[in-house]
C-alpha cells in the first residue's frame, strides 16, 4: 500500500500534468479566437493573413476535392523513400569510413564542407541533372539526410569502448567480427536515434524540393497558394504539414522505443 504522503505526491504530479496540458490547449484556443475576432472586426486584412474559419473551409474543400490525401501521400512517400535510403546509405558509408581510416582521413574535410553547405543551393543543379520531377526532390532530401547520418553514425562507431575491441582482438577476432560483434551492436542506439534526426531532415529536404520543382505534395500546395496569392491555402498547407510531420515524428519515436526495448 502507498503511504498517504506518497499518494499526495502522486496527486501533485498528476495535477501538475493536467495543468500543463490545460494551459497548452487554452493557449491554442485563445490564439485562434483572437485571430478569428481580429478578422471578424476587420482589424486585420484576411486577404493577407487569412482566418481560422477560412483555413478550415480551405481544408474541407481540399478534402471534398479528394486531392488533399494525394498531396499528403506524395509528401509522405517522398519523405519515407529518402529517409530509408538516407539511413541505409549513410550507415553503409559510415561503415566504409570506419573500415578504412585512410578513406576517412581523405573524405573528412569534404564531408564537413558538404555538411555546412546549405543544400538548397544545389537545387538548380539537381533539377538540371535529374529533371523537374520527383527524383530531384528525393535527391535533395537524400543529400540532407545522408550527410548527417554518416557523421552521426561514424561518431558512434569511433566512440566504441576500446577495451571491448581489445577484448575481441585478444580472441584473435577479424575486423569483420569486430564490426559485427562490438561496433554495430554498441552503436545500435546511436543509429536508432539518428532516425529521429533523419526524419526531420528528410522532410525539410522534401519540402524544399517541392518548393522548387513539384506539381504535387504539401510543399507544392504552399508554393502554389503563395503564387496565386491565396493565403488561405498557404496557411492550410502549413497546418497540414505540421500535423503530418508531427505524426511521422511520433511514429519514428515509437519505432525507436520498440527497437531499443527489444535490445
Amino acid at each position, binding site marked *: 500500500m502507498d503511504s498517504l504522503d506518497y499518494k499526495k505526491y502522486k496527486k501533485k504530479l498528476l495535477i501538475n500534468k493536467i495543468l500543463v496540458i490545460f494551459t497548452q490547449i487554452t493557449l491554442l484556443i485563445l490564439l485562434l479566437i483572437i485571430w478569428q475576432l481580429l478578422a471578424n472586426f476587420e482589424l486585420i486584412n484576411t486577404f493577407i493573413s487569412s482566418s481560422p474559419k477560412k483555413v478550415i473551409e480551405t481544408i474541407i474543400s481540399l478534402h471534398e476535392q479528394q486531392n488533399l490525401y494525394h498531396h499528403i501521400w506524395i509528401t509522405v512517400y517522398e519523405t519515407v523513400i529518402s529517409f530509408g535510403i538516407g539511413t541505409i546509405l549513410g550507415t553503409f558509408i559510415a561503415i566504409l569510413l570506419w573500415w578504412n581510416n585512410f578513406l576517412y582521413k581523405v573524405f573528412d574535410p569534404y564531408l564537413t564542407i558538404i555538411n555546412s553547405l546549405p543544400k538548397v543551393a544545389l537545387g538548380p543543379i539537381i533539377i538540371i541533372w535529374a529533371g523537374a520531377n520527383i527524383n530531384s526532390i528525393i535527391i535533395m532530401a537524400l543529400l540532407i539526410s545522408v550527410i548527417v547520418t554518416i557523421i552521426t553514425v561514424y561518431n558512434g562507431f569511433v566512440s566504441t569502448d576500446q*577495451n*571491448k575491441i581489445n577484448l575481441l582482438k585478444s580472441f584473435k577476432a577479424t575486423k569483420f*567480427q569486430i564490426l559485427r560483434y562490438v561496433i554495430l551492436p554498441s552503436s545500435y542506439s546511436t543509429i536508432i536515434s539518428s532516425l529521429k534526426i533523419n526524419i526531420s531532415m528528410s522532410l525539410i529536404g522534401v519540402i524544399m524540393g517541392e518548393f522548387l520543382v513539384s506539381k504535387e505534395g504539401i510543399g507544392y500546395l504552399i508554393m502554389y497558394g503563395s503564387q496565386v496569392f491565396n493565403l488561405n491555402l498557404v496557411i492550410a498547407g502549413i497546418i497540414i504539414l505540421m500535423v503530418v510531420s508531427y505524426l511521422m515524428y511520433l511514429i519514428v519515436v515509437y519505432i525507436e522505443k520498440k527497437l531499443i526495448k527489444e535490445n
Partner: protein
Amino acid sequence: MNNTILSIKDIKKKYFTKSGEITAIDNISLDINEGEFIAIVGPSGCGKSTLLSILSGLIDKSSGEIIYPNQKKKKLGYMLQQDCLFPWLNILDNCLIGLKIEKNLTKEKKERVIKLLELYGLKDFIYKYPKSLSGGMRQRVALIRTLATEPDILLLDEAFSALDYQSRLAVSDDVYKIIKKEKKTAIMITHDIAEAISMANRIVVLSGRPCKVKKIFDVNLTNASTPIENRKCKEFPIYYDQIWKEIDYRG
C-alpha cells in the same frame, strides 16, 4: 611442476611518436613455469601493461622472442581491468563470445560454460543481462568468459583495480580459487603490492621506464592458503616492505 610453459627472451618495445621515440620496455627476459601464478609489479606508467599487451598479441614487440616450449600449450586468455561485458548480450552469450569468434562453439563447450557458471555462483544469472550484476559478479563472468576458450595461460591486467576495496578482496579470492582449481598458469599485472603477495608464488618487480626486471621474489608463506588468509601470514609484512623499497615510486 618445473616445466617452462612460456619463455620471454630479450623483449624490447619502442614507441614512435611525432616528438620522438620512447623505449617502453628494455630487455625483459622471464621464464614462466606451468601452474605458476606470477605477479608483475612496478611504478605506474612503467610499461607493465605494454608487456602484457605484447604477450597477448594486441601490440607488436620491437625485438626479442616469445617462446612456448610446449606447442600444445600456448593458448592465452586475457582479462582486462574493465569487465567489458556486452550489455546487449546475456551472461551466457557474453561468456560464449570468445568461442563464437574462434568459430569453435560446440554443444559440449557450451555445456561446459554453463557448468562453470553454475559452479561459481552465477546459476541464477545465466540468462540475465550484465546490468543486473554486481561489480564482483561481473568480474567473475569475465573470468569465465576467458576460461571458456580453454586457455593455458591467463593474463590478468589490473583485473581487480576497477572494483571497490571490499569486492576487490572477495573477487581476487574467488578468481584465485577458480584459477587454481582449473589448474591454469597466470600472469597478473597489478599496482597493489598486497594483492601481489597474497596471490602470486613469484613476484617480478619492474623498474621505471624504460622498464627492466629489477628483482624477482619467490613468495614462500607459512601455511599459505587463499589470498585473504595469506594476508595474515607472518612473512606478509616482510615481503611488503622489501617490495615497497624495490619499487621506486618516484621513478
